[in-house]
């Protein structure tokens, strides 16, 4: 795995760098440590995180190690527009969830997870579907981040892959274990400052070390016509479109985002999400430009591995100090996401599993904390084992992606439409998953009338995505109109063509099927849900005598019993 062509640190240097990073982060958390933590602070910092910390945490969480490598790969593969097609859509995932996030927060100002809101709206089965998708997503993310740590350590030093995985896993667990989400958001800020400062220095440094603008412009001749075209169809279809489909699904299915949504002071949600959108886009697109620079100079990735591109460029053009900075950049980005995943997993187990389904009316805040901390320890062990043995998670990834797509419409509709029932939610997700499997694994041949049926379902899915995005920002009429127009466009242009792109077809089918089933079943129901009752059913778990900023009206501490209803 080690590569002599890349700069190599000694074992001692790498250990010292990681010790400095994780030791410094751990010391930082000592400043906020309370002898007796409370469950609400452990999960959402008592709903009163300020704008600065909130925006920093949201940005740091959303940037993981893969962001840099994938953005640079996109720049190298698709040319001028490549970094945009990676970073822009990732950034829009944060932006597009914000209008729905405000609705979630309005309905359940004292929630800790989106699952709690869905539990109050529908009951256990819908909530557990959402919780399961969140759990699987965070475990995958944890494993990917630990894997990135192992890969980085083994590429830049004589240390083994497993050593890197274990150091990162134990380091993240140590500073997150006691204070949970509070430690996560505080360290996110410090990690983001380091990350941004290093990105601000490294991008121009590589740019000028490679010869500056004139040299790179001269190298544009090396690009193919598609790579030189800012409006490349190739880049849109292969990089932009699959990301676009996932925009809403990732944000809804990810507890790390909902957790911050419920933690930030309600009046700061908008600036927090906007700042995080711009921050994420700027860093990731900026680092993606390094891939574009490599392409213009005709540089080949070492051993044909695209993940070597950025280390190779930094190693080849900058002094060792910058390589150490790059090392910290990657370790910081993966650690900030991993600690958020640990906090997300603990909140799901504390609130969704223990609070709502095991304690059933009598959650004990101290026991909740124990559940949260045990979850972190077990999740870290699972992440380390999965990463160390490089287990194949492709099937898990496929199912999680489909599950996230299938729950988008039922979750959003449940928060706006009073006729959606628990049966409609649960059935629509299950049916959508089954139909997804039929398309994704081609259990029936996707040709003739069968192919057409799936393309129609996928077209509905496309219409739903566009419609929901427009609805979030521009309201019901424009959302509905945009959805119908998108559906018609898809029916005209995608039928007879989409069946050749199985992954995209299956993902869109999941959206479309769950929407159709959910609407059909809801229309047959006579239920009219009272949304005001959600606020009464979702509350805090501890009494907060110093509570100054929860979403609770009149800033009164919510009685423990509120959390225990249903």
């Amino acid at each position, binding site marked *: 795995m080690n590569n002599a062509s890349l700069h190599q640190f000694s074992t001692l240097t790498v250990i010292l760098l990681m010790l400095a990073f994780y030791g410094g982060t751990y010391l930082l958390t000592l400043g906020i440590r309370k002898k007796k933590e409370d469950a609400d602070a452990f999960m959402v910092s008592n709903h009163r995180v*300020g704008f600065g910390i909130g925006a920093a945490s949201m940005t740091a969480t959303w940037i993981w190690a893969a962001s840099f490598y994938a953005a640079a790969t996109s720049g190298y593969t698709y040319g001028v527009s490549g970094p945009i097609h990676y970073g822009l859509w990732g950034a829009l995932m944060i932006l597009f969830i914000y209008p729905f996030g405000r609705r979630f927060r309005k309905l359940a100002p004292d929630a800790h997870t989106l699952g709690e809101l869905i539990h109050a709206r529908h009951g256990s089965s819908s909530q557990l579907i959402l919780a399961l998708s969140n759990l699987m997503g965070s475990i995958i993310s944890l494993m990917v981040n630990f894997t990135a740590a192992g890969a980085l350590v083994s590429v830049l030093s004589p240390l083994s892959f497993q050593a890197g995985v274990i150091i990162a896993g134990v380091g993240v667990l140590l500073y997150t274990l006691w204070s949970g989400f509070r430690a996560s958001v*505080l360290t996110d800020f410090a990690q983001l400052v380091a990350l941004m*400062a290093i990105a601000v220095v490294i991008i121009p440094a590589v740019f000028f070390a490679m010869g500056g603008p004139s040299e*790179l412009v001269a190298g544009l001749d090396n690009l193919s016509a598609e790579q030189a075209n800012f409006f490349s169809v190739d880049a849109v279809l292969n990089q932009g479109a699959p990301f676009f489909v996932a925009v809403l699904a990732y944000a809804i299915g990810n507890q790390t985002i909902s957790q911050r949504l419920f933690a930030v002071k309600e009046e700061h949600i908008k600036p927090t999400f906007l700042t995080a959108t711009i921050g994420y886009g700027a860093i990731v697109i900026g680092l993606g430009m390094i891939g574009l620079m490599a392409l213009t100079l005709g540089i080949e990735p070492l051993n044909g591995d695209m993940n070597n591109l950025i280390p190779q460029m930094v190693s080849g053009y900058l002094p060792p100090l910058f390589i150490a900075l790059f090392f910290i950049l990657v370790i910081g980005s993966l650690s900030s996401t991993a600690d958020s995943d640990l906090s997300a997993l603990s909140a799901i187990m504390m609130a969704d599993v223990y609070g709502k389904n095991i304690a059933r009316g009598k959650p004990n805040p101290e026991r909740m904390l124990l559940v949260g901390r045990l979850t972190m320890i077990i999740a870290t062990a699972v992440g380390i084992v999965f990463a160390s043995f490089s287990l194949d998670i492709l099937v898990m990834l496929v199912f999680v992606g489909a599950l996230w797509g299938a729950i988008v419409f039922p979750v959003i509709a449940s928060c706006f439409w009073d006729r959606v029932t628990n049966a409609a939610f649960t059935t629509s997700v299950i049916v959508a998953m089954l139909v997804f499997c039929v398309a994704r694994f081609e259990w029936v041949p996707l040709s003739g009338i069968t192919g057409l049926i799936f393309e129609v379902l996928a077209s509905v899915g496309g219409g739903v995505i566009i419609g929901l995005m427009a609805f979030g920002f521009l309201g019901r009429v424009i959302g509905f109109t945009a959805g119908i127009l998108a559906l018609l466009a898809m029916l005209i242009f995608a039928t007879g063509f989409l069946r050749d792109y199985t992954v995209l077809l299956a993902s869109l089918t999941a959206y479309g099927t769950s929407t159709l089933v959910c609407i059909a079943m809801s229309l047959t129901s006579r239920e009219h849900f009272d949304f005001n009752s959600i606020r009464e059913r979702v509350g805090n778990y501890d009494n907060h005598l110093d509570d100054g900023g929860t979403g609770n009206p009149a800033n009164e501490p919510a009685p423990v019993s509120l959390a225990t209803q249903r």
Partner: protein
Amino acid sequence: MTIIFATYVLIWPALTLGVLALICRAVWRDWCDARRQRRSLV
């Protein structure tokens, strides 16, 4: 073309710097508020 390409590449670190400054300023304000109210920043 040289200026356009340089701007296209360097606008992102410039934006990053702007967001970094904004976040640091906001955290400083949050920290001052928290101290004044004698509570933890998070």
